[in-house]
């Protein structure tokens, strides 16, 4: 089914003066796989909402222009009718599912459309076989990992048999292996002749699947390339547009590392912090964490990698004293470790950024707080509400409150998931500055570009144990291979 956006202008407010999309035109042929790329805030998610009907039926705003699916205008269809034709998969696995167990979730979409029960059972069986989900049947969704939840979401949407699939940053919270599974799913849809529109930052996994990459800028489609064309233009060109790399193998090249080569070649010191007694389990027979001792180099950024479920988040929580037995918590309190959570909203409490930094201080010192904010480029936001800031700014506020509580070890849980290239570099710069001031940093991440840009050493975990630990210099290819094959 063809998709056609004609002269679209849209704004989330009451007038078109601050329109996020300005006179946009886009034609997508039936069976094509199109990737919408661009920096954050450029409007690519808004385009995806135009296709799946959320605009004009759900979000309030002002709109000009027409969206045609096939030959029908979305404004003339109801959302239920549009959902028969367009299936949507979103970014956050935890807020996509409506049921408690997987079987019900797979049948949910079909049941909503009023299909015959026998037909629903047939489609469920089909989709389970196609997507290899036999091991996930009959389980509670709350016990699944992020990647498994995302697979169930894709399968559930696929079961209703839509002609068009719209995916909004589906790989944001997934590890590299699950992203490969996601690529399988997308190629299967393409083979079946469906039209797929994907809004993405991470382009490398769509290299062989996408037909076209559209770059959205200032509310317009600024450029269009095929994946081969974009790759041929080189990594520097992509980076200048704020796009992530097209080819993971390129990351191993020394040319890419010109920014951080200097930092890498001269580690600041050879001291290290040792953590002991890091074993932790929920049930006696099944230890989640089984680490005797862990050494982290002081004043450096260490990456913690491993597949989903290896115990990385648990390690972070035990290190910071949020989980574990009494001894572990006391040791954590003594060493002063702070965790910057994946969802920073859980850590922001007060009504102004300045108060947020003052909250953690034992002695309230406003001058020191303002200094910390200046070091993080946040001084001009001192009176703003923390939750009204952008994602990257919120992260820096959380870092500021960590600094003010006087911690020596800072642990980051996926700081760059869902960020474009420029934002990732900004996070990288902040972390490097933090490490230079003497703190020891441990970063849990699935982002190879980020690791190669900022980290100096790597710890790899598997099934609760530390499997490998090595300095990054000279071992880049080993790292990427491990992340892809794990």
């Amino acid at each position: 089914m063809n998709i056609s956006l004609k002269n679209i202008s849209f704004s989330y407010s009451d007038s078109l003066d601050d329109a996020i999309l300005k006179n946009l035109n886009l034609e997508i042929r039936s069976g094509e796989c199109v990737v919408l790329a661009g920096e954050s805030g450029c409007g690519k998610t808004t385009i995806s909402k135009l296709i799946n009907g959320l605009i004009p039926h759900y979000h309030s705003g002002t709109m000009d222009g027409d969206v045609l699916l096939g030959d029908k205008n979305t404004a003339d269809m109801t959302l239920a009718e549009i959902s028969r034709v367009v299936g949507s998969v979103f970014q956050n696995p935890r807020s996509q599912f409506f049921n408690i167990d997987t079987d019900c979730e797979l049948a949910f979409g079909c049941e909503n459309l009023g299909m015959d029960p026998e037909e629903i059972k047939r489609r469920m069986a089909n989709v389970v076989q196609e997507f290899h989900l036999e091991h996930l049947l009959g389980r509670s969704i709350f016990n699944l990992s992020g990647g498994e939840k995302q697979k169930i979401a894709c399968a559930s949407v696929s079961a209703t048999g839509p002609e068009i699939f719209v995916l909004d940053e589906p790989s944001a919270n997934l590890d590299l292996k699950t992203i490969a599974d996601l690529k399988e799913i997308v190629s299967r849809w393409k083979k079946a002749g469906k039209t797929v529109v994907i809004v993405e930052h991470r382009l490398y996994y769509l290299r062989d699947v996408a037909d076209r990459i559209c770059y959205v800028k200032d509310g317009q489609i600024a450029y269009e390339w095929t994946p081969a064309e974009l790759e041929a233009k080189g990594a520097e060109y992509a980076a200048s547009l704020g796009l992530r790399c097209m080819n993971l193998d390129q990351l191993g090249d020394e040319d890419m590392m010109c920014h951080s080569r200097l930092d890498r070649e001269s580690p600041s010191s050879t001291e290290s912090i040792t953590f002991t007694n890091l074993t932790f389990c929920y049930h006696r027979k099944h230890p989640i964490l089984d680490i005797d001792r862990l050494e982290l180099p002081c004043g450096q950024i260490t990456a913690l990698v491993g597949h989903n479920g290896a115990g990385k988040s648990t390690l972070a929580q035990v290190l910071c004293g949020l989980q574990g037995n009494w001894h572990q918590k006391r040791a954590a309190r003594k060493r002063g470790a702070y965790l910057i959570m994946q969802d920073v909203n859980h850590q922001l409490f007060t009504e102004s950024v300045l108060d947020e930094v003052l909250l953690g201080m034992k002695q309230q010192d406003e001058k020191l707080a303002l200094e910390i904010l200046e070091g993080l480029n946040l001084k001009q936001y001192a009176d703003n509400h923390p939750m009204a800031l952008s994602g990257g700014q919120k992260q820096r506020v959380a870092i500021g409150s960590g600094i003010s509580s006087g911690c020596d070890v800072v642990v980051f849980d996926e700081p760059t998931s869902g960020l474009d290239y420029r934002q990732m570099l900004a996070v990288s710069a902040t972390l490097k500055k933090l490490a230079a001031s003497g703190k020891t940093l441990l970063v849990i991440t699935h982002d190879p570009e980020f690791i190669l840009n900022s980290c100096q050493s790597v710890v790899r975990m598997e099934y609760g144990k530390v499997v490998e630990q090595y300095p990054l210099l000279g071992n880049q290819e080993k790292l990427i291979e491990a992340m892809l094959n794990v």
Partner: protein
Amino acid sequence: MIFTAPLVYSLLMVVVASILLLFEGKWKFVCTFFFVYLSAGFFFGQVKNLDIGTSGTIILASLFLMYRIMPACAVLYYVITTTKVNEFLACMSRMHISNKVTIPLIVMIRFFPTVFDESRAIGNAMRMRGIRLFSLRTLKNPVSFLEYRLVPLLVSITKIGDELSIAAVTRGLSTDTKRTCVAKIGFRWADAVVWAYCIAVVLFYVIPGLTGNLPSL
């Protein structure tokens, strides 16, 4: 009515709940529940004649309130853990209860674990910052403690709620269309047996209990 039910009546209802749970395979729960219930009943029977003072009465009263709800909790546990969302929705729509009532109900059921998860994460973050319930800072300013606990929770919940309703709406959930269900819904002989049992208990115990003619046992 439940206020005058004697121990035997409650035991009979517990038996029903336990049988239903056993059918679902929840052996451990049934055994623990029976053990706790019987020992609590025994304990209260022994203790009521002792004089334990005001503080003892307070503790005893609280424990007794929980004891009174236990059979109902067992049945609630059965309902919650073994009812699937789509069966529930289909059942409701068969009884001609509109989608407007059932959609909030399933969202509520699905959302309880999320509320606790978010609350726990926020509690962790607060502990890391040194904001504890019984610290000096909280005692100086109790309203702020409530603020720190509630505001991030509400922001987080609102965000999840928005994402959830977008996901639901793009998957065709609406109050206009009639939903179908994969599972078969209907009143079958097992249901009839349970109904008959419950009605019998009511007839034999509850009604005489109301009028004061409890059967001797």
